[in-house]
């Protein structure tokens, strides 16, 4: 590990000032569970490490029935999944955040960091995508909103410029007759990276027999988390039945573009896309009916 300077700004303004000046040689740290490992194996060698945990705006966690959920970029996972509103209205976020790392990692890691790390296998990103979340990105004097589905641009890369930082993630208020769910497949039962991850969001009609809208997003099967719009198009207005869900699984499989690596072969990943998409959609439906 190379020696690195460390800054811990306590206001958003001073953080943005640092980025304006040295953003190109700075890495922003929230929980540090990815960046510290990268520093240690020297796959990242910034001159400056900027700790974002003391910035008030990045620690916001609030819910409003009209505007939805705001997650500050430095909010650790354990605070998120313990939050009563998150548990009640966004159980899919609990699905995602309780399987990232173990308890010690969850004490530090953040959804914001998971998003900015932009791994194709990130467990929180498919859930954010299917929930229609947006990212609030700030630079000195400029704020912009980017849909999470457009945030990642490749493995480890995203739309953030060197003078920008993620401040909050905003998740829309939940609609009636809707629910989301996230599941991943790992060969073990914990402490692993998704071979395939599937987030699904389902909104049914009032009688619960037709899909109004469905979003499915896949992890670990493409250079970025994949938003499978083909499923949304296909299932809208269709009957809720095994045949249509089976077809959705097939569409997920067809949309996936996995590689073969140590975590699984491409063929196996495609097979899992179908299996997990069906299971996840069914779980979302169960959540709606159980509510």
């Amino acid at each position, binding site marked *: 590990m190379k020696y690195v300077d460390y800054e811990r700004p306590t206001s958003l303004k001073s953080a943005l000032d640092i980025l304006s000046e040295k953003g190109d040689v700075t890495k922003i740290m929230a929980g540090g569970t990815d960046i510290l490992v990268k520093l240690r194996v020297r796959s990242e060698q910034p001159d400056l490490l900027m700790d974002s945990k003391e910035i008030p705006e990045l620690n916001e966690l609030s819910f409003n029935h009209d505007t939805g959920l705001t997650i500050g970029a430095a909010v650790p996972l354990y605070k998120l999944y313990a939050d009563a509103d998150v548990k009640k209205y966004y159980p899919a976020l609990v699905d995602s955040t309780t399987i990232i790392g173990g308890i010690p990692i969850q004490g530090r890691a953040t959804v914001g960091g998971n998003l900015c790390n932009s791994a194709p296998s990130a467990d929180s990103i498919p859930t954010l995508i299917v929930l229609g979340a947006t990212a609030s990105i700030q630079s000195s004097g400029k704020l912009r909103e980017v849909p999470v589905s457009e945030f990642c641009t490749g493995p480890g890369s995203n739309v953030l410029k060197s003078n920008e930082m993620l401040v909050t993630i905003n998740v829309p208020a939940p609609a009636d007759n809707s629910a989301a769910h996230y599941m991943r*497949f790992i060969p073990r039962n914990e402490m692993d990276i998704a071979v395939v991850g599937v987030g699904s969001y389902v909104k049914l009609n009032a009688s619960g027999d037709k899909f109004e809208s469905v979003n499915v997003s896949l992890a670990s099967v493409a250079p970025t988390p994949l938003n499978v719009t083909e499923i949304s198009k296909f299932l809208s207005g269709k009957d809720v039945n095994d045949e249509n869900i089976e077809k959705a699984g097939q569409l997920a499989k067809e949309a996936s573009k996995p590689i073969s690596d140590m975590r699984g072969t491409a063929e196996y990943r495609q097979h899992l896309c179908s*299996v997990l998409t069906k299971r996840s959609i069914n779980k979302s439906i169960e959540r709606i009916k159980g509510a």
Partner: protein
Amino acid sequence: MTNIKEPKKYEVIGTRPLRPDGTDKVTGRAIYGGDFEMTGLIHGKILRSPHPHARIKSINYDKALELEGVIAVVTADDLPVNPDGNISIGYSRGNILAKDKVLYVGHAIAGVAAIDPHIAEEALDLIEVDYELLSAVMNVEEAMDSSSEIIHENSFMKEFGEMTVTNNNIDEHFQHKMGNIDKGFENADLIVEGKYSTVMVHQGYIEPQAATALWRTDGSLTVWNSTQGSFPDRDELSNILDIPISKIKVVPLEIGGGFGGKIPIYQEPVAALLSKKAGNPVKIIMSRKEVFESTGPTPGGYTWVKIGVKNDGKITAMQSELAFEAGAYPGSPVGMGSLCVFAAYKCDNQLVDGYDVIVNKPKTAAYRAPGSPNAAFGTEQVIDEISQKLGIDPIDFRMMNAISEGDRRVDGPKFPVNGLKQVLESMKNSPQYQKKLKGSNKGRGIAVGYWFNVGLQSSCSITVNTDGTVNLIEGSTDIGGSRASIAMQAAETLQIPYDSVNPSIVDTNTVGYTAVTGGSRTTFSTGYAAHLAAEDVRDQMIKRASEMWGVPNDSVVYSKGQFSSDADPELSMSFKELASQLENTGGSIAGKGSINPKKVGGSFAGSICDLEIDPDTGKSTILDFTAIQDAGKAIHPSYVEGQMQGGSAQGIGWALNEEYFYDQNGIMNNSSLLDYRMPTSLDLPDINTIIVEVPDPTHPYGVRGVGEANIVPPIPAIANAMKRASGKRFYNLPMNPPAVISKLNQDL
């Protein structure tokens, strides 16, 4: 001695006291290899090969030496010269620092010492190595092909004990033969054969290798390290560095797991050479990546098995060919695998061929019953297949063909008294086996396995304290509770409470030669030595009592912790009372015991596994698991159970997910604990244990070492369960979810 009244039953043996090192270990006070500190200590890092096979054309480390904070750099040129071209020393030194060629990714090339580890690491980037790339040979099939690139240009294949003039990648081909194999197969009603392949896996000890070396100006060398054997380390250091053992002291620190992988040394000689140049103590701690890529995993390879059987279930012929990866230098465990492949079965006609094959992977080392799991993955599946085909219960089928005392192993020796049949009987009667397994996609598999107790040298001494306690001085590093199991034997022999024995593990200058903590030998041999030392103390105490009382030595009796004399019923003294009077009656008492036991028995183990396969994802979940093993006499039953559960856990990991995943360039892609996928506690069932006790008559308390045999049967038991759950026979490891899905879809 005939005047010793042995206690009717054991007072200490068979109880479950706390281990003496427990509190320090759970509170973090214990000093492990990486914790060692000393004034002037500097830090070393090792430059390693990024290529699986390449010629080193030049190494230039001038720029590294110029970096501020760097103190010394060493390469193979700093190792002693080998003018006689001794191949064995050449291999030993070659694996410490590569000389002309690198033979695997992770092969050490140079060591750097600096004032802190970060600077040392940065300096590695400044060392320029010019390579000529050679094609890599990555598995036994490829390596045994005569057209493959030759890894050791100057070595020749040994065949049937003779050196040949063949220069290939097979270091040795040997054969064991018994009876007439052709006739055996002719007499068979049913013949089943199959080729079963395994892949390289690692022991996965939690503590990475860590060592500090100080080469003093007087030429003496002290090494503080995490090791399974300080004395063998001393021998190896002497060999590699060409200095006499009298100049070397190895101080073993606490060890965080080894499983065989901490028998060889790796960075110790590099730290020593750096210390010699720098004048400071040099500490080197491996990263996990280095542990995977640069230490000694256990090999992949294949075990082909062919077995003939009569319709009534009697085995008539057994044949096997085993080819294991040695890694970059000779010495795979194929020799041991070939002795274990049919160890459990009585058969007059056997033929076993073994091949030790060089490949461009790290040199393999011991891993818990080395070679036996690879062999059993073949044998125990073929046996299962036969029992299914004959419609005989798999435990009954094994019982019908189980070896007995006096039956011969394929290489000749007769089996001593052993517990195989008792293990099989316990398996049959176990609560798990008695319970029916119901439901689709579920299956039950069983298997048995064998491993030796290796014996070897151990020494102990015991000194008596005036308060009636004793200090037990031993040389066996404690990995799995051996402080307790050895102290318990000393306490039993001395007829004093377990708490009155204070064990210390000392350095190579302070106790007699003690071989590795490995080979299922420590509780056996070091326990035996402690027993002998305790007898020596007891006899000296008897002599002291007789002198104090002025009665004949042979009139003094020691029973239940009391000395008394047949000469006068009034005379009686406890161990503690006598201990308090030693100073004024001739001085303190110290006993000693040394042993190198021969013809030591081994241990059989069995596994029963119930599992369920998710047919959509291919994931197997173990529903229930029982480990059964012959412990001879369980000194500390909790630690025996711990060994059985630990071996089972490692077997489960090996069966289902663990593997060295290599890409096409010979680079391991999963050299982290994240992607290597050892099982976590959530991946393991509660592992039931049944201890069988068939005492080994060569040990005073009947001990059989239990550290290893328990890893052998879980792998084939899982494969057999998967066969019964899915209808598919698995010929390759790991049996991970993608492999299961591809197998399930084979006939679709």
